[in-house]
């Protein structure tokens, strides 16, 4: 078992599906920051067996909608004075803009410059979204 020091003030992104930790790490540009960050992969988890987690020694702004879109099972713990001051459970966002792209070659997004790809949640159970322009359905796996 590997131990990483607890943080005194910052954020713990917990219960990340194994394999998605690095993706979130990269999405948040955590390789470019000047404060302490730990990316832990394949940590034991009582609920999921294995999980990834990220500890950030800083109260940076996070786009919770995007994190929820990447993995809606994530828990965000806000740490103040070494204690969890707030626990945020994420869910799939109703709308996603500029994160993923529509793959339908007949969609206007395939040709128009500077267009923002937009999707709306249509089914929470299956996590399916539709393109706001062409209605194509998508389910993204992590």
């Amino acid at each position, binding site marked *: 078992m590997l131990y990483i020091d607890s943080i005194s003030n910052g954020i713990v992104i917990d219960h990340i599906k194994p394999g998605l930790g690095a993706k979130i790490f990269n999405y948040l540009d955590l390789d470019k920051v000047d404060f302490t960050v730990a990316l832990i992969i394949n940590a034991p988890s009582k609920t999921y067996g294995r999980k990834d987690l990220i500890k950030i020694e800083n109260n940076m702004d996070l786009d919770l909608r995007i994190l929820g879109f990447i993995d809606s099972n994530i828990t965000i713990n806000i740490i103040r004075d070494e204690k969890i001051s707030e626990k945020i459970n994420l869910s799939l966002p109703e709308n996603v803009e500029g994160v993923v792209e529509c793959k339908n070659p*007949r969609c206007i997004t395939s040709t*128009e410059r500077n267009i923002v790809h937009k999707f709306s949640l249509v089914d929470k159970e299956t996590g399916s979204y539709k393109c706001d*322009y062409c*209605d194509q359905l998508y389910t993204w796996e992590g």
Partner: protein
Amino acid sequence: MKHLTDPMDLSMEELEDLFKLAKNIINNQEDYRSVCSGKILATLFYEPSTRTRFSFEAAMQRLGGQVIGFSEPGSSSVTKGESIPDTIRTVGSYADLIVMRHPKEGAPKYASYHSLVPIVNAGDGGHQHPTQTLTDLLTIKEIKGEISNLTIGLCGDLKFGRTVHSLIKAISRYENIKVILISPKELQIPEYIKKEILIKNNIPFLEVETLEEVIDSLDVLYMTRVQKERFFNEADYIRLKDSYILDNEKLKLAKSDLSILHPLPRVNEISPEVDNDPRACYFKQVKYGMFIRMALIARLLEVA
């Protein structure tokens, strides 16, 4: 300001209001002859069209308004690479209403995000064609008396047929509608229509491959064209092609009060011998199309 890019942009009340106004225009054409005087409609057709464009132009001119526009992108700045938002902002400075046809799905919706004047989708790729749907609904209402309590068969290319997609969306809001989808496997309705419209709204539907097996149960038959090039293999085309051609022989199996609709243009999916059958409604449908567009223009421009 209101746009019409998807049939669901109109509430049931707005639909009823349009049908009522269209009916009033049909019965009192003189009263509407100059309600759009001084107004300009722009038709931006990035893809060729004859009847839809003519229908809009005739509608606007019968209301006393004027029309500008292009009927193929080659004759516009679009070929210079102008973006849709720039085109829309420019044309919107000249015109009071923009009607747009585009080969890409969602283009009119994207245009509506950047427009200061109402945008009407006149067909976007294989996606939607809401004013054809208004035409279809008005035709059904005028001929059948109501749009509820009907078994509606949609036959032909259900995969790429935008008029079919729009019509299914629209009829899903009416009561006691049954839908029968008649197409080759390769041209079945897209998943999103099945899941998002039919299943979600608990509309009973059936998918079959031949018209003969279901024609006797239909109140409305909506025919569309099946093109040979849409099939993946020649054998299937040869096996099924005749099933999608409506002729007097097949009509013998149908109800006496069946209404046959077609968004036109027709190629060979309805035999010309059917034109004389009282059940053929597709030319009446064309006329209703112009009147419902007159009603739509008048409402969007708030002149009636």
